[in-house]
């Protein structure tokens, strides 16, 4: 049965952090993932702490260094609609615009989007999988067409967040608040591979909360894009996605960042592709080679080898479009 739980609507950050510092407390922001998790009995809660009324954690403000601070409660819809983001951090606005469906984008928050639980159908379904304390990852021998092609195991889910991939390409830094104060984590270190932790997907401790996202000042000549491939055109997670960030100087790629979604338990850095692109003038042949490089190291399972082709094609296409 569903365990009865307490509900608290926090008015200040301090109140929220205090409330969270107790056993079985969970954050409720947009609720689009929490309610589904509770419905599916993925975990139980003793206390639901609503943070949706905390004004300090909502909205976007400029940073003194020219960067941008995004509060964790900023909705996905407002990120998708932001003129500043569209102009200076296009990859993030584009990723947000591809999240879920209009209703979910209005309700869902950026913090929640980064911290959502896996969407693996074994994890969400009635299967005692490793991530739920079971002994096995059902995807290994089972229905794995949607699963990871980059994972060392023992779990092969793909991280569901679009914005996480985009923020990785932007080298965002995340502020985490907790009982011991706040700390800053580069997004690259935020997500945890399954071999490091099987029961959670990021470094947040139970009483901690991701409060702010910080973007560096836009670099000169930088341009970025997000491309998402999915089974249907709305309300669907990525089969493969590509977040590209390129700094271009006189037609030459001086710096490239290429991150993939839908292929690994965390945003996946296509380091070989980045390396290949740096210092070169982009043309069709280079784009194709970069696509090949992006798929390097992939270990597909029985039903997801198509993702290797998809990565190659999506990276190639994204490069050509971004520099068209």
């Amino acid at each position, binding site marked *: 049965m569903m365990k009865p739980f307490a509900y608290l609507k926090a008015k200040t950050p301090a109140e929220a952090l205090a409330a969270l510092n107790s056993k079985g407390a969970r954050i409720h922001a947009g609720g689009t993932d929490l309610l589904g998790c509770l419905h599916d009995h993925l975990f139980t809660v003793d206390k639901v702490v609503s943070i949706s009324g905390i004004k300090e954690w909502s909205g976007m403000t400029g940073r003194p260094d020219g960067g941008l601070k995004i509060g964790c409660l900023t909705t996905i819809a407002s990120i998708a609609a932001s003129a500043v983001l569209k102009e200076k951090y296009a990859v993030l606005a584009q990723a947000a615009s591809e999240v879920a469906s209009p209703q979910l984008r209005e309700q869902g928050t950026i913090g929640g989007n980064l911290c959502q639980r896996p969407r693996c159908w074994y994890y*969400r379904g009635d299967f005692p999988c490793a991530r739920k304390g079971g002994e096995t990852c059902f995807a290994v021998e*089972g229905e794995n067409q949607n699963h990871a092609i980059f994972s060392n195991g023992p779990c092969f889910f793909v991280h569901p967040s679009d914005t996480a991939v985009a923020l990785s390409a932007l080298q965002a830094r995340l502020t985490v608040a907790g009982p011991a104060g706040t700390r800053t984590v580069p997004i690259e270190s935020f997500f945890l591979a399954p071999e490091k932790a099987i029961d959670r997907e990021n470094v947040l401790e139970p009483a901690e909360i991701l409060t702010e996202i910080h973007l560096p000042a836009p670099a000169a000549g930088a341009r970025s894009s997000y491309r998402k*491939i999915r089974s249907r055109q709305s309300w*669907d997670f990525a089969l493969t996605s590509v977040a590209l960030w390129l700094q271009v100087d006189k037609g030459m790629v001086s710096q490239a960042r290429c991150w993939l979604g839908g292929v690994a338990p965390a945003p996946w850095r296509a380091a070989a592709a980045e390396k290949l692109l740096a210092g070169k003038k982009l043309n069709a042949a280079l784009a194709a080679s970069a696509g090949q490089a992006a798929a390097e190291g992939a270990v597909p399972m029985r039903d997801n080898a198509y993702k290797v*082709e*998809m990565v190659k094609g999506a990276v190639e296409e994204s490069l050509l479009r971004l520099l068209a």
Partner: protein
Amino acid sequence: MSHYYEEMEESFRNSFEPAPGPVAEAKIRPWEKTQLVGKGVPRVDGYERVSGAAQYTADIVLPDMLYAAILRCPHAHAMVKSIDTSAAEKMPGVLAVLSGKSPGADLPWYGGKAAQSKLFDTHCRHEGEEVAAVAALTPYQAADALRAIRVEYETLPFVLDPAAMQPSAPKLYEGGNAVGEPRIVKRGDVAQGFAEADVVLEETFYTSVQMHATMEAHGSVAKWDGDKLTLWDSTQGVYDGVLFGAARALNMPFNKIRVICKYMGGGFGAKLEVGKYSIIAALLARKTGRPVKAMLPREDTFLCTGNRPEARMTLKAGVKKDGTLTALQLTNLSTPGAYASGTSVGYQVAELYKCPNVLVSESGYYSNAGRARPFRAPGFPSGNWCLEQMMDMLAVKLGMDPVELRLKNFTEVSQTRQVPYTSTGLKECLLQGAKAFGWQEARAAKKSDGPVRRGFGMAAGMWSGGNGSPPYTAEVRLFVDGGITIKTGAMDIGTGTKTVACMVAAEELGVPLESVRIENADTAVTPYGQSSGGSMTLPGLIPAVRKGAWLVKQQLLAWGAEALGVPAEDVELKGNAIGSRSAPDKKKPLEELLRANGVMDVIGIGNRDPNPPKKAINPFGAHFAEVEVNTRTGEVRVVRLLGANESGRVINQKTFHNQVFGGMTQCLGFALTEKRVLDRQTGKMVNANLHDYKVPTALDVPVQHQVVAVDPQDTECNLVGCKGLGEPAHIPTASAIANAIYDAVGVRPTHGPMEPKTILELLAKKKRG
């Protein structure tokens, strides 16, 4: 009704001998000119539906009502060894717990002679089988109580695929897993046909299991008043489905059960029979003495309410150089899941085109999965998938235009029945569809060799039903103020039946549409109507409505002629009076006329007349698609669809268009995204929810979506000249999209659905050579 469909609807539709029509029928002539019929009219219940005033089963709330929840077996194959409900019974709000051992709950269910299953069977043959049920004050208490029921299962080995046919396979039944004998349809001699052919092609095709995914879940609300039971049920048939089924299950007379379904949130074939949930609600309501509502959670609807079964088809076709078909040979192996249900797909192979030599052989096996149910044109999108892709392959091989190849094999005579169709619009659908689509120009245009390729494809189709047949009764009642009320037990499952019935009554009586009201689908007050299935409600019911209205008119004209002293042909109904056409000053208020004849209303009972003998009645269609295929990512975008459909008389342009849009959209899901996925390790469904099971969203449906309504002016098929549309509008869309994909990228998507994965795998295979 064709034997194919009859077989699919096996158990719950009663068969009746057609009643002989009354003598009056001979005088009903086809309308020469119509005032209302043929126009585009908004739905008569549109306001109720969009405002929320319409009460669906899910909306029913009664005083003291309890909520039921059903415990389901979590294993693909298991025996229930014991059930302990003691903890659940003590939980707050729980008023009753039901299992197979409860008094009155030991009821026979699926099966029959060979193997008899039960309402709560200890042998659970697939995930989701009903094990126990509870009734509680709130739905949450009921759901919580389920989790407190302790069940001990003995899990058994399971089988999901054709390995079920092996002797060593786990058995669902003592007699083995074969579903009866192979079904054979044979005509001519295929060996000779292939010998005569210039080109012979053979290909293997596969279509996945598609779920009905109705917007309104399955469910029922049960209320007892003494020995009388009322069921509000989300059903496609208040009579054939729920009333007769519930009466049989509960051993009650028909007139002691009242079944009501005024508004329906989607059935597509999954709501043709009484559900276990309806009977469980009735038993819990009897046990507690309070009304009980049993709406299924979304997840349960995916496990236990039906699906379109998969099909493994091999089709061999022979054709002469000029395009003349010489032979078609189909084998199909499929599974209805754990309980018998139709899996046949071969009808169109034997019927759609003129072909002297045909051999269809179909067989099935039981497997540990949810049972198939009729799904919008059962077997037809799957059979069409192989036949119409094969026609495309033949056209390519012959260097012939695909439309031309189909026209070459066009027939006006039913191939399986050897009688002429009352009408066939197939040729016109092909010609008018191709013209409106710009087919020739599109196919002739130079193809891009870039990464995103455009392609154009088409497919034809037909439906074995759509004829409609007796019995149906429509009561048409004229009030003294000129208002009309139609009563019928027939359903409007979202298709627009009610609107069309009102239009036809208004047309026949010459009154405004606003004067006509319809009350339907209430077995206590409306006369018999068949379940809505087979695209037969409109051609079944509407002629009966016209006849009822016609009878009212005849009575009025006779009384009017007598009262006014003019010939009957000169009498007309004018608002709340009758008058003479030739002498406008001669008139009489209806009330006066009726009172003089001892009544305050005139009632016409319209029965459905038999169909014409030695004729075939079938609807046809041809669908056209334009797609873009991204060869880098495997994405398919359907950018344009056109449906040219012929279903006899077009009564309401708006609902006709609606049906074609809806049918094509649902088939677009079948084509591109929809498939049930069962975990091979456990036999459990991994995508039993609306997120992982992917029905198309608004963004997946092309903005450019056109309908061509072909009207063959059929005066033979019935009194109104109409045939059914819901299913034929759903049949050839996926094949048209597949053919367009082939046109775009030169790979043949034989296995559906055509996900990005499918396309990328095919392209990779082609690249490897």
